[in-house]
């Protein structure tokens, strides 16, 4: 139990950390996919089967695809899959410092505070329960999410679609 | 309707799939080394030498080493050495024979000119197309042992043409034999007459050696492959 958790934790943190350090964008994205899969495995470990598969489906199946597609569409030449040059040193240092501070605060808090925990078996939640919950108490949220998804899909298409006037201007020398 | 074309296409392929199992008109493949389609009669590739006796092909070649084909061959793929001695041919007449008869099939262009010029119907076109060899030089150079094939084989691969040739040869031979017989008879009669009347004039005597005894020695016949 603990061993599995430790393994997953190391997998997630290591792959995410290496992903953030790599200069090759595709490698970063694929390593992040591994990290997301690790999160899904964590859900599975915690007993949330449905959420785990949903995570896998959405992150590994959909978001990673979109990310990779974006990488391929935005690269300018064959070599430029490798990252654009990093920010200035000062900016990087500031960013790292901020992240480190947040991490320090969070970590310290986690280590010191004591949360009441329930001991015992993993709570059972079946797909049926989730369905009843989604259609019952959470139906308003479900509808809102549906609207958000639709709007964002249309918005994404509109934003990414080529503006005919703009391309005409660009193409004509 | 959208998709009707797809259904039509599926029907066509299904018909082919089923038909290939029972309809020989659809399924035309022959399993080559085991099954063979019959070659067309006029198919030809490389020449071979016709021999009259099946049990001794080299000994009974019709070829008399006249070397006409060697001279006529456009790519010059034929090489002949005439024998020093003579031996009797099918009709019993003394003839030269090819001591060496080589055809380089890597050079031969299957033009059939050798067949057309041969006055003795001794060289014909073969139908053997499985001529792949593991070696480039000697294996493609055929000597008279490999080239000699019996007349029965010729009758098998070119039945119509072979029948014509055989009929002509037989007629020639018959004519020759009759002439010889007539000549012999005449000679005998003459001898008898001479015996009976030694004083009779000998003016008819030289006609006997002039008469041809073998059909092959007659004037060349036009080739019959047309």
């Amino acid at each position: 139990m603990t061993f599995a958790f430790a393994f997953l934790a190391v997998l997630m943190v290591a792959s995410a950390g290496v992903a953030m350090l790599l200069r090759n964008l595709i490698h970063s994205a694929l390593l992040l996919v591994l990290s997301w899969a690790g999160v899904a495995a964590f859900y599975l470990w915690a007993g949330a089967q449905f959420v785990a598969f949903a995570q896998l489906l959405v992150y590994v199946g959909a978001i990673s695809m979109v990310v990779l597609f974006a990488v391929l569409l935005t690269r300018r030449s064959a070599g430029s899959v490798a990252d654009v040059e990093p920010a200035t040193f000062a900016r990087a240092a500031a960013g790292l410092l901020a992240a480190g501070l947040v991490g320090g605060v969070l970590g310290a808090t986690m280590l010191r505070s004591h949360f009441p925990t329930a001991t015992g078996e993993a709570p059972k939640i079946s797909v049926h329960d989730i369905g009843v919950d989604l259609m019952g108490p959470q139906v308003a949220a479900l509808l809102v999410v549906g609207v958000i998804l639709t709007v964002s899909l249309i918005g994404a298409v509109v934003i990414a679609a080529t503006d005919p006037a703009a391309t005409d201007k660009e193409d004509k020398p | 309707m959208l998709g009707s074309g797809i259904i039509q296409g599926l029907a066509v392929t299904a018909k082919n799939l089923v038909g290939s199992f029972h309809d020989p008109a659809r399924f035309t493949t022959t399993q080559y080394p085991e099954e063979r389609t019959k070659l067309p009669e006029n198919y030809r590739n490389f020449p071979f030498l016709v021999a009259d006796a099946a049990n001794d092909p080299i000994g009974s070649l019709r070829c008399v080493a006249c070397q006409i084909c060697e001279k006529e061959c456009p790519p010059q793929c034929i090489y002949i050495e005439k024998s020093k001695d003579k031996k009797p041919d099918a009709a019993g007449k003394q003839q030269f024979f090819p001591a060496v008869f080589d055809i380089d099939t890597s050079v031969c262009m299957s033009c059939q000119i050798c067949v057309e010029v041969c006055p003795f119907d001794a060289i014909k076109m073969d139908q053997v197309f499985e001529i792949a060899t593991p070696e480039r030089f000697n294996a493609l150079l055929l000597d008279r042992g490999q080239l000699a094939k019996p007349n029965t084989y010729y009758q098998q691969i070119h039945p119509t043409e072979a029948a014509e040739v055989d009929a002509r040869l037989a007629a020639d031979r018959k004519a020759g034999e009759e002439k010889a017989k007539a000549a012999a008879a005449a000679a005998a009669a003459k001898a008898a007459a001479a015996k009976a009347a030694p004083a009779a004039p000998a003016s008819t005597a030289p006609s006997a050696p002039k008469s041809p005894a073998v059909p092959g020695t007659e004037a060349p016949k036009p080739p019959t492959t047309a």
Partner: protein
Amino acid sequence: MSMLNACLLLSSALFCLGLAAALVRSNAILVLLGIELMLNAANLNFIAFWRFGPDAGHSAGVMFVLFSIAVAAAEAAVGLALVIAISRHQRSIRLQEATRLKG
């Protein structure tokens, strides 16, 4: 240290990595990926509390993660559409150069 604390530590580590990526990297896609990672770290907390919290078995944690995943998908779609639009307009996805709207 209880299991819950361990999970929370893990999630804060992931969160920090995501934050660092979002702040330090200048590639728009990597920044977006960092944000996704932060979102995942938050989701991890929900599941951790659902699993080990005192009110274990209440489905709110799972529900929240489900909605969060759905919204993350929408966010990724819009974000990457924006990245593509930016790259089309300024021929680069360096965020430092996307300053056209600066006053």
